[in-house]
């Protein structure tokens, strides 16, 4: 199975001296292409940091990170920016839409920034898949949370990135809207072959993925294939007990 992203001995340290915190401790990870990977772990386990480092949003303290065939640690700000623009899509917990732009303008924003014309056929497919056809002219403030997150998903997919990173995408949503968004992410993997990495602490959300990585204290401690919500919950409980 080819990988869309991978890390070797990835280490991330915050602060120095007394306030030194090792957020990631020599993590090795492979993100398989065309698959839906979930990263789970308790608060402070380093799951968000792992995602930021994999996505080229944050600098790393040691080790190596690849997206596709590009090694990230050697890249400057310009090259990293271009990489994010062309190869990475993001879905944030807080939606992070530009409030002054309409839904459609938000969806095409990464393409506008890149100065590229959107592939209209693909754009139509994405818009229809998220079911936002009749909401395109609305501003984010006129959309519900679920609709906003679907706009954010469409934005992540519009430029056909190598990999999409989703940071607690259902954290701010009610369970029905959350299920819609997760269903959409699942479909984009199944129907379009999109690679998705999702950070979550919700076993229900993790059950939509193909594979769950469990993170604790900056290390990957376990993984589970074809997870169910119950199985994930059981595993999490086991960690909690092991820690206490």
């Amino acid at each position, binding site marked *: 199975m080819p990988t869309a992203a991978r890390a070797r001995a990835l280490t991330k340290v915050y602060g120095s001296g007394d306030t030194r915190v090792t957020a990631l401790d020599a993590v090795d990870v492979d993100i398989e292409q065309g698959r839906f990977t979930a990263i789970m772990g308790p608060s402070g386990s380093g799951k*968000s940091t792992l995602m*930021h480092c994999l996505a080229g*949003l*944050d600098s790393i303290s040691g080790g190596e990170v690849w997206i596709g065939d590009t090694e990230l640690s050697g890249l400057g*700000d*310009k090259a990293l*920016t*271009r990489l*994010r*623009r*062309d190869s990475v899509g*993001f879905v*944030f*917990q*807080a939606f*992070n839409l*530009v*409030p*002054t*732009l309409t839904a459609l*303008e938000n969806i095409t*924003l*990464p393409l*506008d*920034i*890149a100065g590229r014309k959107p592939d209209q056929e693909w754009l139509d497919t994405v818009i229809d898949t998220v079911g936002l056809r009749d909401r395109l002219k609305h501003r984010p403030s006129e959309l519900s949370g679920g609709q906003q997150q679907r706009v954010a998903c469409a*934005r992540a997919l519009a430029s056909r990135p190598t990999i999409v990173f989703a*940071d607690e995408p259902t954290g701010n949503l009610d369970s029905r809207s959350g299920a819609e968004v997760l269903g959409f992410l699942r479909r984009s993997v199944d129907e379009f072959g999109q690679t998705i990495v999702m950070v979550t602490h919700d076993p229900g959300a993790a059950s939509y993925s193909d594979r769950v990585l469990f993170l604790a204290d900056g290390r990957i401690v376990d993984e589970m294939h074809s997870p169910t919500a119950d199985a994930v919950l059981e595993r999490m409980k086991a960690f909690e007990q092991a820690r206490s």
Partner: protein
Amino acid sequence: MLRAALRSLLQHKLRLSLTLVAVVVGVAFVAGTYIFTDSLKKSFDALFEAPQPDVSVTVADALGPAQPGGGGGAGTGGDQAPTLPGSLVGEVAGVQGVEAAYGVVAADGALVVGSDGEVVGRAGPPARGTTYMPDSSISPLSISVGEAPQGPDQVALLEATAEAGGLSVGDTVKIDTPSAGLVTMNVVGLVTRGISGSDGSTLAVFDLPTAQRLLLGEGDVVTSIAVKAEAGVPQDVLAQRISAVLPESATTTTGAQRSAQIADRLEQTFQFINTFLLAFALIALFVAVFLIFNTFSMLVAQRTRELALLRAVGASRGQVRRSVLAEALVLGLMAAALGVVGGILVSQGLRLLLKGFGADLPAGPLVIEPRTVVVSLVVGVVVTLVSAFVPARRAGVVPPVAAMRDEISLPAKSLRIRTAIGALLLLTAFVTARLGLASTDDGNRASSLVGVSALCALVALIALAPVVGRGVLLVLGAPFSGSTVGRLARENGRRNPRRTAATASALAIGLALMTAIGVIAASTKASVAAVVDDTIGADYVIFGVKFQPFSPDVYNAVKDTPGASTVTYVRQVPIQVDGDRTVLTGVDPQKITDVIDLQMQAGSSIP
């Protein structure tokens, strides 16, 4: 990207429009200065087209601006105006190429008494008397109502003079004249001045013999000769021919030269207005820089998450920076455009204001040169862009990962460099101020040193404001620290000293400038008062109306007033020494030192 930037502008309409005002005011003063000056220059063209003598013959080296027609008189006035013999008029008329030559008398001191018994006009500008030239093609005066004065008891008044004195055609009017004392005349006409560059002087117009009798008191003499050229004879050629027949004491001026002189004089007069306007523009723009800087800093801080998002989805630092600068550009363009419109209002307002002060400017169209628009736009845009540059750069360095964090705090930079620069500038300010105040014998050096000091102090103040601000807020907030709300307010101000300081700085600069103007005005007033108190020991000073000389009879009448210990007189005449004009003052050397503090610098007083 650009769209997001422009929409953001729309979203912060109110906040930005307040920022806009400062730029608009600044640009309006810049544009206003240009429009006013250009319009004035354009109206000078009218000076060259208005009827006036082709050549004027005047007394050579006359002291004070001898002006034929509607113009001047002899400087400090009233004293005998320099004259030419009347026979010269006939000689000039005989020169080849002269169509007609007219004797003109013009002198100061024709005080028109209004219907209320008071002398018409304010104390400053002179009261002029002159002759009416019957040829309208060269006469700067034209009859607007009634007819030209003819005979010993007829007078025409300047329209403005008649209006101010409540006089009209058919009335009788008393006029105090230099040579014939108070005379009663019939008002037969009103005149207007074609060109003037006038200063609010009053004007009474007589026929030539009457003017000679009332204003000069001698026989057949004139103060100037107005010449009309035959068609096709150039002014300068004619002037040369006339010069050939003139005695050494007379000289010629062509119409074109006179127009240029008037234009020159007007331009110099209004130069100070330009300086004043540009100073105001500078102040407004200086304040604008701070307001823009502050507003954009706040906008950037507020939009950190949005900017981080743009960075995360692939916008480069440059793109984010440019998007902020694009906002500034649009804002600057809008402000500058409004400023140009404001400039028209400023220039028109100035016109009205000056009219209110009695200066009647030559009329002319409003001139808006392309240069005015270009300069205004450039000033508005550059000021806005420069002020927004630092906030824009700050926007560019927002880390993309900030989009994911709930808590957004920009890294707080150390104030150490800022403190060092501020302290250095403050020191420079002190040193230059001391040096400047010490160099009392060189006014230029002193003022430029103090100027540098003021600028350094101002910038030092701005640099040190965040450092000082924390302490100041602690003290100022102390009375309120009993309540939670008070403590919160105080700590909120102290939390981000840069932001607090930037807000305070705009206000501080405005106040500093206003205070400076106030102090200058008050100091000038105080030092003038001190000079008057120190040098003039007299309890009363008697001046002639409009500073005209008056009869020694007045002195004789006042001299024996009971209770007056010392009464003395002063007389001044304009003189020329080695080409420099000055005033010769005649006094009674025995008594003058009792009433004026005069120090003998060298020599001795004649007993």
